[in-house]
């Protein structure tokens, strides 16, 4: 067996672009997922029955089917839905990369919802009551009192979920988007260098995720001391 690890150097700009897309997708999906996930969590905890039912139904649906299937769903539905919205003659072409971003925001929102729900529920009830007693509205109480604390309590979980998300973004491979894994796989198949490319990808992911989860562990210890 002859190995040619130089191929990584030769194709580095292409791999780097793929890696940048992976990071971009992770960041956008994490921020967007957290944003919509927080609203979903407020919906699930809302006393308005239909609202909490819809939010719970959405979250449970997303959590009970595989991410690969969710990617296929969005990849196939998105052009049709956009056509309905824009009312155009034919479905707009938005490409695998943008489809993946929307899919991951929608998918991660369900997971971040559960984290934020736990965070909100970890805040003492008295805080809500005292916020209302001060004359704050629901929106103000949530925005100024409850959510900042819930968010802070859940930072380690949110970061851990983001690391999982970082790994999961490799699945955009199934809709042929060129993320880090996708770029490596395209090079591997073009040049018949599967061993070198996949070992390299595995090593990069391992080092990054190991260091990041170690950092989260340290942060967790630090936050625990402050509380």
């Amino acid at each position, binding site marked *: 067996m002859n190995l040619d690890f130089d191929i990584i150097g030769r194709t580095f700009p292409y791999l780097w672009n793929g890696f940048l897309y992976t990071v971009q997708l992770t960041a956008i999906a994490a921020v967007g997922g957290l944003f919509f996930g927080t609203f979903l969590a407020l919906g699930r905890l809302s006393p308005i029955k239909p609202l909490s039912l819809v939010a719970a139904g959405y979250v449970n649906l997303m959590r009970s089917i*595989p991410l*690969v299937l969710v990617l*296929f*769903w969005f990849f196939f539905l998105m052009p049709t839905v956009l056509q309905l919205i824009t009312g155009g003659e034919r479905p707009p072409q938005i490409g695998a990369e943008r489809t993946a971003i929307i899919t991951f925001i929608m998918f991660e929102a369900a997971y971040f919802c559960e984290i934020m729900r736990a965070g909100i529920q970890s805040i003492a009830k008295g805080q809500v009551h005292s916020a209302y007693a001060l004359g704050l509205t629901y929106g103000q109480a949530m925005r100024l009192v409850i959510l900042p604390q819930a968010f802070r309590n859940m930072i380690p979980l949110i970061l851990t979920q983001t690391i999982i998300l970082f790994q999961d973004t490799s699945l955009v*491979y199934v809709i042929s988007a060129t993320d880090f894994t996708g770029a490596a796989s395209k090079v591997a198949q073009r040049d018949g260098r599967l061993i070198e490319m996949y070992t390299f990808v595995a090593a990069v992911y391992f080092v990054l995720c190991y260091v990041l989860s170690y950092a989260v562990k340290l942060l967790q210890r630090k936050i625990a001391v402050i509380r």
Partner: protein
Amino acid sequence: MNKLLDWRIFFQELPGGGEQYWQLIVSGIYWTLAVSACAWVIALVIGSVIGTIRTTQHPWLVRAGNAWVELFRNIPLLVQMFLWYFVIPEFIPPLKAWIIASAPAHAQFIAAVLCLGLFTSARVAEQVRAGIQSLPRGQRNAGMAVGLTELQVYRFVLLPMAFRIVIPPLTSETMNLIKNSSIALTIGLAELTFRSREMGEYTFRFFEAFSAATLIYIAIGMTANRVMAFVEKRVAVPGFIASGGK
């Protein structure tokens, strides 16, 4: 046939003839269940051993167990799948010869089972370790005090309680495993998601095909959930909230 939705599509024959589309989907369900079941057994056995040795007093065993968990947790499952299918056989010539000689489905199945089994074993190990460590320290000490060996303490005192405690987290790992088995489609294994996409491509009825797959995943997940809840109830130790079930 130009209706927006047409559920009769499942009873239409494939282009090759003979089979109908619902049979295609059912063959996918078989593979999903077979891969998940085999991988689950591997994950449970190896995960229990690794999780247990991480709670012992032997530093090298603990380190080896931790390394195992970190290794499988920090590489995306998709990349692990590629490693098992494309890379590892290259380093074992007899294995590669066997793969070339046998049907592709066999090699795909074995790679997927090993990949999912070992990946899930790392997660099971985390749960088992947490379960053992959640037991009061006095239990281990009491076991030692009545003269049990370390193995006996685990066998008769710690593990029987720990396994009951970890049933709920193991339930969600089981459901994750079933969902993760869909990643095997990337190495060509014809499981449920693969078959539903195939049906969509043949008929251009993606909505019907993906709806079927979605409902089937929900049904399989709920069944697994109920089975585990039943086990949890059956093995509950009276008087313990942690193992009481609902």
